[in-house]
């Protein structure tokens, strides 16, 4: 441990398929004081490197199963939110819509556990 963390678990990784969505989510999290890294969902090396900083929250968007497996192996205690279940499909039922609050909830759980 070289430097103290800024707060109990406030590190997140956004694994993005659509840059605008990923960067936007990262921005919303940073506004709340979270340290956020962003990695492209099609770049396993970048995701692996970003996992070195041990994020407590990982947001996935249309990640390949291998990427999801990598996340679960490397940071087994992190909260994982997959936003890809609805994004971009077009006609989800209103109840299925992914909202930013879901990410915040996961962050809350992660922070409480840290």
């Amino acid at each position, binding site marked *: 441990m070289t430097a103290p963390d800024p707060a109990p678990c406030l590190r997140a990784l956004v694994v993005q398929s659509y840059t605008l969505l990923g960067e*936007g989510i990262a921005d919303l999290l940073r506004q709340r004081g979270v340290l956020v890294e962003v990695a492209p969902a099609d770049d396993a090396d970048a995701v692996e490197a970003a996992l070195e900083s041990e994020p407590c929250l990982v947001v996935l968007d249309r990640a390949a199963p291998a990427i999801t497996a990598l996340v679960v192996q490397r940071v087994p205690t992190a909260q994982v939110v997959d936003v890809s279940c609805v994004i971009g499909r077009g006609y989800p039922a209103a109840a299925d*819509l992914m909202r930013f609050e879901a990410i915040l909830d996961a962050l809350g759980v992660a922070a409480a556990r840290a």
Partner: protein
Amino acid sequence: MRTTRVLLVDDQPLFRGAVAALLARQPGIEVVGEAENGLQAVERANELKPDLVIMDVEMPVLDGVEAVRLIREQVLDVKVIMLTVSETDDHVVRAMMHGAHGYLLKNLRPDQLFDMIVSVMRGETPISPAVAGRLLQHLKETGGSAKGAVVPEEPGQKLTRRELEILRLVAGGRSNKEIGKELSITEGTVKSHVHNALEKLHMTNRIQAAAYIVRQGLGLPDA
């Protein structure tokens, strides 16, 4: 600089929130409203009179392509950029024929989106490279006819020889800059020729003009 008032239309609240957060950081841009389907977009556009609508394509109730047509019919002086994951030829072609001012894919970087917004407000027609090629291919194959096209058959005023020459190059997929180089005139001059030609043809974008050129047999795009 005048603030660009934006209406953000997408059925995904997370995406709207994400893009709104990015736009909020940008000086000169203000998100004045959001809508979650095409019908709501038409209502909100009438009510808020935004400068720019950023419009998803696939949405429930009324899709973005139809919403563009209605907004362009009902609201004056509004620009519409499609921002979507859909690269479907039919969506791209119909959106542009209905008078959209740009067609962008969601894999843009935030700074690219900001540049595109500035560019569309300057009167240009930004199109993601991945879809621009498809659009030109479609024009070549169909001779510029598309379902629901609102391109007039006859221009209100006759085009000058120079305007026609420039529109042919536009139909060939050249940018203003490239056309300027080819004809040894400035980019600004090209832009004003294109602008005047579009006015005469009662058109809003280069794609409609390209379709017109192809359909009238005034020159085939060779790009």
